[in-house]
């Protein structure tokens, strides 16, 4: 479904943040990317939907190379990829349902998008999605009045509104309490099983990755150092992923 091949990225032209990253994510699979801070997890995720332009490699989504698209093609391809952020990144003064409806901006004309001219069917769908993530009663609340866990679920509904084939999550539970975290992770897991959406999650917690992911990718110093089933991630393997010297070697090599 998603194939990342030989991805390379440097922000400043000298130091490489990603050196030759390759992995694949199957349809309906939950994959977790783990690794120490600064390893390049965010960089990988943002390269996939081209929020940042990487330097070399291929990002194939159902055989379509995201890196070769022009502006309007990219806009179209992005509709297939939902994204969820650590800080939710909702438009806070707007209501939950308006934020969810942003998920269909990609297939609207500019004018319809500017003036919020959504179809009745789209509005109904947005409401259903909010009900699905357990926020049916909060549809007309301003997002700034919602709790962190509720905001994150609005974020998930916004991503679902895109009818995505893939959802990218950058540390979706890093700002949440354990109970909200479980709810968010379970929702994501369910989407993969029921709707066959592939989910790629950056995580910091090894145990949560083991619990919810089918597939784990370990990153250290901009390189893939582990890529296997979740069961194969032993404690030793996990310690290996978080090993400091790999990062240090990378910096020493500059």
């Amino acid at each position, binding site marked *: 479904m998603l194939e990342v091949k030989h991805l390379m990225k440097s922000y400043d032209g000298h130091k490489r943040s990603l050196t030759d990253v390759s992995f694949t994510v199957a349809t309906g699979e939950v994959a977790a990317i783990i690794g120490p801070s600064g390893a390049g997890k965010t960089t990988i995720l943002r390269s996939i*939907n081209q*929020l940042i332009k990487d330097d070399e490699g291929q990002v194939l989504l159902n055989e379509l190379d995201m890196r070769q698209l022009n502006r309007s093609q990219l*806009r*179209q*391809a*992005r*509709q297939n*990829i*939902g*994204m969820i*952020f650590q*800080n939710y*990144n*909702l*438009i*806070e*003064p*707007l209501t939950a349902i308006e934020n969810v409806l*942003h*998920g*269909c*901006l*990609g*297939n*609207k004309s*500019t004018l319809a*998008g*500017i*003036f*919020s001219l959504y179809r009745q069917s789209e509005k109904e769908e947005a409401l259903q999605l909010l009900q699905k993530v357990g926020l049916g009663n909060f549809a007309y609340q301003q997002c700034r009045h919602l709790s962190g866990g509720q905001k994150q679920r609005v974020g998930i509904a*916004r991503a679902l509104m*895109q009818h995505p084939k893939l959802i990218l999550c950058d540390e979706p539970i890093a700002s949440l309490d354990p109970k909200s975290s479980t709810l968010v992770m379970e929702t994501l897991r369910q989407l993969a099983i029921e709707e066959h959406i592939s989910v790629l999650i950056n995580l910091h917690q090894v145990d949560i990755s083991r619990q919810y992911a089918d597939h784990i990718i370990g990153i250290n110093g901009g390189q893939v150092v582990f890529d296997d089933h979740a069961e194969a991630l032993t404690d030793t393997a996990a310690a290996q992923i978080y090993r400091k010297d790999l990062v240090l070697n990378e910096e020493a090599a500059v």
Partner: protein
Amino acid sequence: MTPKALTISQFFFKKRLHLTLLVLILGLAYVVSSIGLGFQTTALFHAQDGLIWLLHNFIPNAESMRYWQDIGHQLVRTFLIAVTSTTCAAVISLFLAALGANTLSLNNAVTWFIRGFSSLMRNIPIVAWAMILLFSFKQNDLTGFLALFFMTMGFLTRAFMETIEDFGMDKIEALQATGANYLQVIFQGLLPEIAAALLSWVLYMIENNVRDATLVGLLTGTGIGFIFDLYFKGMRYGAAGLVVLAVIILVVGVEVISNLIGRLIE
């Protein structure tokens, strides 16, 4: 341990030094400028004589009440000029700010041009604007309108630009990630987020322009400033005092209303 403790105390010593220097520089600036002007602070203690004369003559009396209708009429005109010039300028400023803000900018040359233009507009004093425009537009409401308009446009463009730049890129990116295009991101993401901040700038500018409109009217011979001038030169001090009182009431009224509106949006 010791070297670290040393750097901490050095750090705070440095901070205190900076503060002391700042106070010294300000003190020096006062001394130098008051010597330069031949101004003595003690002169302030003798200011009471002048104030008594002022109070005695400028208190509106029964005689000056005859003028209140004229004053009210001019007051409304002045107020309307302040409001229309601010709102017109605000619309154009928003457009310019969106083009000029670093975070949204499509083109560096455009950004620099707009920055330069707005700082030019803003840094010409309102009095100079009024004098310059007086040549081309004569004594006319339009002159006052334009003077306020240009100055406000410069000021608001800058203020809006900074408001836009303070707005986090990550929310913009979240919308881009859904496939939204440039204008959709601006209207669906940026504007709702910054609307409250923009409105409070506009309200601030309306307050400010009600005051400035009085001054501009004095120069361009229109509105409330003009009749103040008229009464003052005609030695009708009571009526002139009434004009001042009316302006104060208007300015305070505008301030109260804008505070109310500000609280309503929150």
